[in-house]
């Protein structure tokens, strides 16, 4: 396999994993048929009476089964010559469930899963990164059947739309087939909602205006599964990490962040786990961006203010000194490594929001223009060059 083919293969497989993670099962009629079998087998789940049993009472369709179906039916689409494909045949059997015993599920998580199951409709926007951003899009699940969405994955655009009991799948400009839609939305919702059930030692804390649940996936709940499914000779053991932002008032989810880290550094320093290395990441933001701006936030940790920022705020609020706030703010923007790191983390989500708004509503829509404006507002806070950009935009008249 030459280098170019190898790279394309890796990207394609990464895209396949991402597609699974967001519950997208597109591309082929065989996929459609297999998905239908699973969806029809998924009997409606009885309403759970206990938050602690939220994970235990999940419907019969497990993420692992969904994943096996996806891999089995999508693999024929992988370009010929990909050596890993034949090795995936033994993977047809669903992987063992890595769900955590109900007694170990935090109460907040159990309540939130029940709240998500009670929603008649789930809007989510997704964005995927594997070293670099590889795709983004939106998906609307109207329970129990209707699935509508649009996105771009590894430079290929796709669209799914449900009508009259059929979910039409379009890849690029061409129809790729129809899925009988019975139970499809329920199955996809459960695949997403059950993800936190594989986190054995989840911690919950208040971060800003959300409850933030964080933890590592259990062995077999993420990293081993990825290795099995991709068939790649993966160096090391990727660590699965999950962050979930829960609205404390409604218990519904605002955002979910799933990361697979091939750790170069994984140490615990004074109780703080420091993990760093090449990372694949899927970010989901729940809620309609046009009606719920807060949903665009990510579950990434919010920065605490620095001493310099506090001093700047004090300057700006003191009438006698406020005229110095501008120049001091410019000076403070220099060398702000924390801000630079945070901006690099936020960049893919902001860009994906703009791309998704364009997909949903078009170039002239208010949603798209607002998303671009949010990006520009963020961009002007860039360390070092933020002040320069502010000057350019002001004098050039752009990005007002």
């Amino acid at each position: 396999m030459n280098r170019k083919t190898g790279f394309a293969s890796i990207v394609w497989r990464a895209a396949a994993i991402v597609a699974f993670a967001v519950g997208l099962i597109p591309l082929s009629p065989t996929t459609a048929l297999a998905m239908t079998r699973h969806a029809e087998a998924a009997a409606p789940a009885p309403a759970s009476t206990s938050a602690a049993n939220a994970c235990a009472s999940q419907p019969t369709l497990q993420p692992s089964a969904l994943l096996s179906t996806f891999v089995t039916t999508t693999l024929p689409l992988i370009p010929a010559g990909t050596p890993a494909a034949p090795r995936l045949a033994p993977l047809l059997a669903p992987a063992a469930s890595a769900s955590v015993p109900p007694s170990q599920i935090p109460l907040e998580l159990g309540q939130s899963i029940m709240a998500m199951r009670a929603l008649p409709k789930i809007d989510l926007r997704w964005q995927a990164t594997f070293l670099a951003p590889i795709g983004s899009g939106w998906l609307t699940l109207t329970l129990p059947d209707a699935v509508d969405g649009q996105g771009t994955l590894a430079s290929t655009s796709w669209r799914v739309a449900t009508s009259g009991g059929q979910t039409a799948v379009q890849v690029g400009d061409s129809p790729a087939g129809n899925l009988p839609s019975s139970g499809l939305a329920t199955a996809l919702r459960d695949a997403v909602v059950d993800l936190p059930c594989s986190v054995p030692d989840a911690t919950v804390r208040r971060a800003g205006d959300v409850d933030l649940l964080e933890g590592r996936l259990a062995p077999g709940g993420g990293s081993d599964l990825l290795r099995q499914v991709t068939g790649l000779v993966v160096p090391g053991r990727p660590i699965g990490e999950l962050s979930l932002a829960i609205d404390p008032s409604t218990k519904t989810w605002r955002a979910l962040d799933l990361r697979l880290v091939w750790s170069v550094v994984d140490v615990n320093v004074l109780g703080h786990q420091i993990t760093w290395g090449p990372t694949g990441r899927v970010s989901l933001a729940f809620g309609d961006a046009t009606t719920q701006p807060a949903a665009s936030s990510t579950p990434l940790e919010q920065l605490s203010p620095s001493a310099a920022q506090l001093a700047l705020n004090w300057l700006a609020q003191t009438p006698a000194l406020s005229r110095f706030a501008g120049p001091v703010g410019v000076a403070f923007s220099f060398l702000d490594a924390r801000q630079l790191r945070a901006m690099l983390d936020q960049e893919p989500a902001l860009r994906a929001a703009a791309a998704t708004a364009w997909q949903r509503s078009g170039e002239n829509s208010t949603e798209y223009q607002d998303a671009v404006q949010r990006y520009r507002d963020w961009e002007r806070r860039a360390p070092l060059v933020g002040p320069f950009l502010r000057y350019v935009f002001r004098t050039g008249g752009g990005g007002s």
Partner: protein
Amino acid sequence: MGSSMRPGRPFVVTLLALFLLALVVWYVVLVAKAVLLFAGDILFGGPAPLPSDLRLSPIVLAVAGIVAIMWSFLTSGGLFGGSGWARVSAVLLALFALPMGYPTDLVIAALVVLLLFFPANVRAFFR
């Protein structure tokens, strides 16, 4: 005659300068991440007609990181060489560049001030 010779570099100054070199590595990681974002947008950005200044934003961040690399590197070299300006710059770096917020950053900056401005042998080195 002997009094005109600069004293040897104090250990604490060497240690602080080495910390700043570690900070350079941290900035290099950030720059690599910014370049990957840019590459990812070219390869997988999709058809959305994003304005060109949005497309270039990761490069802007990479430039910020590169300037920060140079700043940290020069400051570290300045500390090794006993330059006075490097002491002030090291305090700024402690305030802005370390991955921690208030009040930890203020405590660290205060420690740097104590170490670089008060011990007699350090003051003699920077004189």
